[in-house]
């Protein structure tokens, strides 16, 4: 028998016997909808994760470390939430892979598609953090213990990282010539003596009640600081939770940052 007839006859007999069926248009519509939903969810989760990364950097003021020289930059890298970023990138890559199912997906180079998705998710995350009260409200709910498993996540984001205790958001109680005494804004227990970097004119820069972000080496109840930055008193944003906006300049118009 001709091999051609074999394949054709096999297929047609399966069709006639009802063993082979056409998928309905609804099947394809459902498949496309499901794929689109998965891509959408992946991107939404990715946006929320990027948003949380930006929130973490803002609320813990770890971004201040970038102004504290190479050492501050390295500490910033060490404290960056790399695991969250890795999860985010995996989600974006998964979304890109699924988008290749569609014609507009595979017609574009991979770099363009991934780059576009990253720009979209990063910018969206940034806008949500900086232009909406979403995270501030979530932090408020976390303080009221209303977020369940997310309580710890949001509250933990608020505190500066350990660095052996050398990072501090402190409120000044005394101003000395080359040091200040302060208490940790987040812990408010034992006073901490902050030894300022050389050349720092404390009396013209700081006053009692100022809130400063400090990075240095902790030794008992003192911190030998390599970076200090003053910020204005907290203000009430949308949503009621307090947020911090670091000051670039002090009242006299000079930069407070010292390395």
């Amino acid at each position, binding site marked *: 028998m001709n*091999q*051609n007839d*074999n*394949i*054709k006859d*096999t*297929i*047609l007999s*399966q*069709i*006639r016997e009802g063993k*082979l*069926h*056409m*998928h*309905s*248009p609804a*099947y*394809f519509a459902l498949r496309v909808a499901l794929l689109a939903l998965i891509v959408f969810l992946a991107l939404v989760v990715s946006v929320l994760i990027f948003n949380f990364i930006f929130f973490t950097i803002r609320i813990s003021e770890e971004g201040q470390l970038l102004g504290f020289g190479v050492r501050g930059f390295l500490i910033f890298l060490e404290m960056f939430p790399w695991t969250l970023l890795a999860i985010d990138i995996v989600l974006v890559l998964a979304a890109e892979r699924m988008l*290749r199912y569609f*014609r507009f997906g*595979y*017609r*574009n*180079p*991979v*770099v*363009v598609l991934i780059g576009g998705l990253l720009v979209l998710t990063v910018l969206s995350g940034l806008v949500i953090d900086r232009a909406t009260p979403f995270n501030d409200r979530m932090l408020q709910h976390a303080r009221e213990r209303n977020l369940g498993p997310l309580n710890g996540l949001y509250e933990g984001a608020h505190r500066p990282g350990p660095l052996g205790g050398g990072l501090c958001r402190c409120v000044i109680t005394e101003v000395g010539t080359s040091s200040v005494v302060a208490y940790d804004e987040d812990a408010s227990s034992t006073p901490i003596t902050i030894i300022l970097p050389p050349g720092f004119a404390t009396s013209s820069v700081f006053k009692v009640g100022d809130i400063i972000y400090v990075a240095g080496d902790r030794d008992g109840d003192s911190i030998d600081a390599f970076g200090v930055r003053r910020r204005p008193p907290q203000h009430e944003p949308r949503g009621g939770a307090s947020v911090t906006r670091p000051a670039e300049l002090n009242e006299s118009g000079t930069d407070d940052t010292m390395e």
Partner: protein
Amino acid sequence: MHTEDETDEVLAARVQAGEQDAFGVLVERYEKKLLRYGRKFLPRQEDIEDIVQDVFISSYQNIKSFDASRRFSPWIYQIAHNAFVNALRKHSRNPLTMVDFDTFMSYHVEETPKDMEREHAEMRSLIEKGLEHLSPKSREILVLFYLEEFPYQEIADILQVPMGTVGVRLKRAREQLRQVYNTLNLEPEL
């Protein structure tokens, strides 16, 4: 009654409407082409026939996803491409890579003009002799362009890659073929 003049697209639309015999005509038209296509990838005739049968089964099951306003040929070749690539990955030690690095960047598309018929004819004879010495990726692109005579855009749809990638792969495949001929001292039949 289906005439020989009916296009593949018309037949596909009839199949979508429930005319089973119309699918038989499509099978007749594409069986030899797909078997020939498969021979460029797999050595065993039995494996090729099994895969071609699976391709037709898959195309019947998914026929309602075919847009009859587009060409049928690239659609069924896309199904065949995916089937043969999967088979290659199972059978070959050096399969088509999981990650196509040549899809990462954007490339300028320089489509080979259709009026270069002489070069087209020369390439067909070169390909027939040198194909087995080429990588699967090179084989595939040369077969689709020179033997099956698909334009760049349809090859892009079959392989699901950007059009620029088609141009790059074709250029590399031609160079690889020339190297094979130089290395093996093969004489093209012109």
